[in-house]
């Protein structure tokens, strides 16, 4: 059991001790562990990020960098609960359609300027500006801030966005409807502040190390395309005294096996466990190998407009015949959870409903699948022929191959089709598929981030699922005090209509050197902050 210091605790204890400077060659202020002299954290970045501009960031790696460089209204504790960021406190009105954030007065940009409510107003307008065209513009729509949709369509100016700086340190947000989980969406990078003068001066190149002004615990000091990304302590950061890591170095290594090699040589302190090697590594290096639940779902989509798959019995049979525990235990083997619902159980306040097929044994499922297929006139001698589309990846390939064999045993003959990512996306988007692999990770910790995909008018609804009851339940859930009964009903409908076949819920599998402490293993969104880490003497 590791002790993970909360920001507050560190704050109190260290102020008691009167520590004001760096911690080098010191003991940790809370735990008393001896710290390493060199507080540099090296980790693997799987691919160069398209952008680290908070409003333009679109990938996981870029978001992690952005979270170090910038600080939003709120941040997260190690367990994923909300913690004050630039906002010291916040409150919503009773109908939960208006929120007020009170900003701390000692927050500074790396050039010394104070961080004010105006910076947030600027950043948020930027996020919805059609000219900026943020890839996460749709996230802003999900926050329900007033007028987002109209602004994105170009019908209203960005100044009409429902956010206002009451004074320099008070930010007021008005929503188009009530949204109880609005504050939890404020840890997302798209809502982070950006420095107007810098962006106006440098244009798109403002994110280069020599130009960037940021308000997070770190500032960008080096960026070499496809090689490294270095961020170092920002002495202007309001809580700089409590930051232990001086420098975080992200090394861009595409190949996961090569990354593991370099981890072994201690060139990296953190990397992902290569596909299919979790069991072996857990045995060899039990302390360093971690598997943490994630807010992600892996599933197969059925094209409900396809001539064959529009038959419910067939979709059901395909879903039933997948032996999920083989996928999770034998192929992946890193604590992934077999999925019979779309929303993962790790989602806050969400209770996984017992779906009918989830309770059956695999033997019974296969039997049922065979009889359902027989009803439609298929059998092992006259198999159902389908095509399964997946994008190029070692992991997707393995799962597809195994599932193909499972289907074969009940009389389904699947042709596998592997396509490179962009081709795959355009094929799936155009509906030129029967069954397609899909995955989704939550943008915020609430079931709607998943279930929204099942709405008939969602852009992401690639199976063309159209159930008015589902639409109604999802929309009405937003204003409810306890939306979970609605979510449960939606999940039950999914397990009746089978627009998708859930396969498993992800875990994040990583290798972490034993001397790196403070990693937020409990955070299901896998949001980590360098400022919360420290390296013990080794």
């Amino acid at each position, binding site marked *: 059991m590791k002790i993970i210091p909360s920001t507050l605790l560190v704050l109190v204890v260290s102020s008691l001790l009167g520590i004001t400077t760096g911690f080098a060659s010191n003991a940790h202020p809370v735990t008393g562990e001896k710290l390493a002299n060199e507080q540099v954290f090296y980790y693997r970045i799987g691919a160069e990020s398209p952008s680290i501009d908070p409003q333009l960031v679109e990938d996981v790696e870029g978001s992690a960098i952005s979270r170090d460089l910038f600080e939003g209204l709120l941040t997260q504790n190690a367990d994923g609960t909300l913690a004050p960021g630039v906002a010291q406190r916040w409150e919503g009105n009773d109908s939960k359609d208006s929120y007020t954030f009170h900003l701390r007065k000692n927050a500074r940009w790396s050039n010394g300027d104070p961080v004010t409510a105006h910076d947030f107003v600027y950043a948020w307008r930027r996020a919805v500006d059609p000219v900026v065209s943020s890839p996460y513009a749709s996230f802003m729509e999900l926050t329900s801030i007033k007028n987002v949709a109209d602004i994105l369509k170009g019908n209203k100016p960005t100044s009409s966005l429902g956010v206002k700086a009451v004074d320099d340190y008070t930010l007021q947000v008005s929503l188009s409807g009530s949204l109880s989980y609005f504050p939890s969406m404020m840890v997302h990078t798209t809502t982070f502040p950006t420095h107007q003068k810098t962006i106006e001066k440098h244009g798109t190149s403002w994110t280069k190390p020599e130009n960037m002004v940021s308000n997070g615990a770190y500032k960008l000091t080096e960026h070499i395309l496809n090689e490294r990304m270095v961020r170092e302590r920002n002495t202007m950061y309001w809580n700089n005294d409590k930051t232990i890591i001086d420098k975080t170095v992200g090394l861009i290594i595409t190949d996961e096996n090569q990354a593991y090699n370099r981890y072994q040589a201690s060139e990296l302190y953190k990397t992902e466990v290569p596909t*299919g090697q979790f069991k072996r590594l857990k045995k060899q290096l039990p302390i360093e190998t971690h598997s943490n639940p994630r807010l992600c779902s892996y599933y197969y989509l059925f094209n409900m407009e396809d001539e064959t798959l529009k038959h419910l019995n067939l979709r059901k049979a395909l879903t039933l015949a997948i032996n999920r525990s083989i996928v999770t235990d034998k192929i992946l083997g890193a604590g992934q959870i077999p999925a019979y619902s779309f929303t993962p159980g790790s989602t806050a306040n969400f209770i996984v409903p017992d779906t009918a097929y989830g309770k059956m044994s695999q033997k019974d499922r296969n039997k049922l699948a065979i009889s359902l297929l027989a009803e439609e006139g298929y059998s092992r001698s006259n198999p159902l022929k389908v095509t399964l589309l997946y994008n190029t990846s070692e992991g997707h390939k393995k799962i597809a*191959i195994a599932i193909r064999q499972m289907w074969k045993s009940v009389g389904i003959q699947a042709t596998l089709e*592997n396509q490179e990512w962009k081709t795959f996306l355009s094929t799936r988007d155009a509906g030129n598929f029967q069954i397609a692999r899909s995955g989704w990770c939550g943008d915020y910790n609430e079931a709607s981030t998943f279930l929204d995909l099942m709405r008939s008018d969602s852009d992401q609804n690639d199976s063309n699922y159209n159930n008015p009851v589902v639409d109604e339940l999802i929309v009405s859930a937003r204003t409810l005090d306890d939306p979970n009964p609605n979510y449960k009903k939606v999940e039950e409908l999914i397990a009746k209509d089978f627009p998708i076949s859930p396969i498993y819920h992800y875990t994040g599998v990583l290798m972490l050197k034993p001397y790196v402490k403070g990693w937020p293993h409990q955070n299901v969104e896998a949001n980590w902050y360098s400022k919360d880490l420290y390296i013990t003497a080794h």
Partner: protein
Amino acid sequence: MDRPQNSLLIVMYVDNIKIQTLADNLSDGSEIEGRSLWQDARHRFFKNKAALISLITLSLIVLFAFVGPQFSPWDYEEIDWDAMGDVQVLGAPSFASGHYFGTDDLGRDLYSRVIQGTQISLMVGLIGSFIAVVVGTLYGAIAGYLGGRIDSAMMRTVDILMAIPFMFVLILLMVMFGRSIFMIFIGIGLLSWLDMSRIIRGQTLSLKNKEFIEAAIATGVKPFTIVTRHIVPNVLGIVVVYATLLVPGMIMTESFISFLGLGVQEPQTSWGALINEGARTLQNGTLWQLLFPLFFFITTLLSFFFIGDGLRDALDPKDR
């Protein structure tokens, strides 16, 4: 000016100097009498030990690719569910389990998969080089035979095509024809004929003035017939050598495509795909996953090289 160039990545593996020398020597010999040349060549080929051993090895591999499946209890796509979860132990090569070469990471029999990969890789190599050689020969022969402006226009086109980065075209082809490996190889074949066309054009230029061609023209044979009936058979020696040496390049290219994960569709496989999977798991204690396919891959490519070299030496009239 007619000097061969290694234009594309894959042609790196063809020793163009030798081909050109052979071409020069063949056209130096004033008259080529088909039968004696081929008979003589065969005789000399069989005296070349390296080439002969390679030919036997290659024949054995081809034989293995066709009769091998008879000896395996496992199908190439069947999963051994027992071995699946513990491949390091249960998936190791063993006669008892019937997995002579062990299993892959999913518990599929590697012996059967290597056989399947052998079939695909050989097919891909042969199709690719066949297309390259046919296109290159016809193009070069037509350009050389017609001469004049058409010839220089055709050869300028070749010059231009040679400057297009091969890798980039290859990847776009994969993206566009991702659904079929054979389409990709038709595409690669269509990209690899450039050197061939230059050599054949040079040959045709020197053949054009020979009496038998002039006689054919005088009797009113159509140009295309002259090219196919009289010119192509006379350059066949080079064509065969070139094609043999092109096959390894094609197989290498396929392995690169597999490295990018864009090769043949599962559950089918190829050497490249197998080697790539094996190389990824080098540290897993499943070394057989790399060594078996790599052995077949290297042995076959070596054989093609030695056979190609042997053929070249055998056909070269200067060495007689």
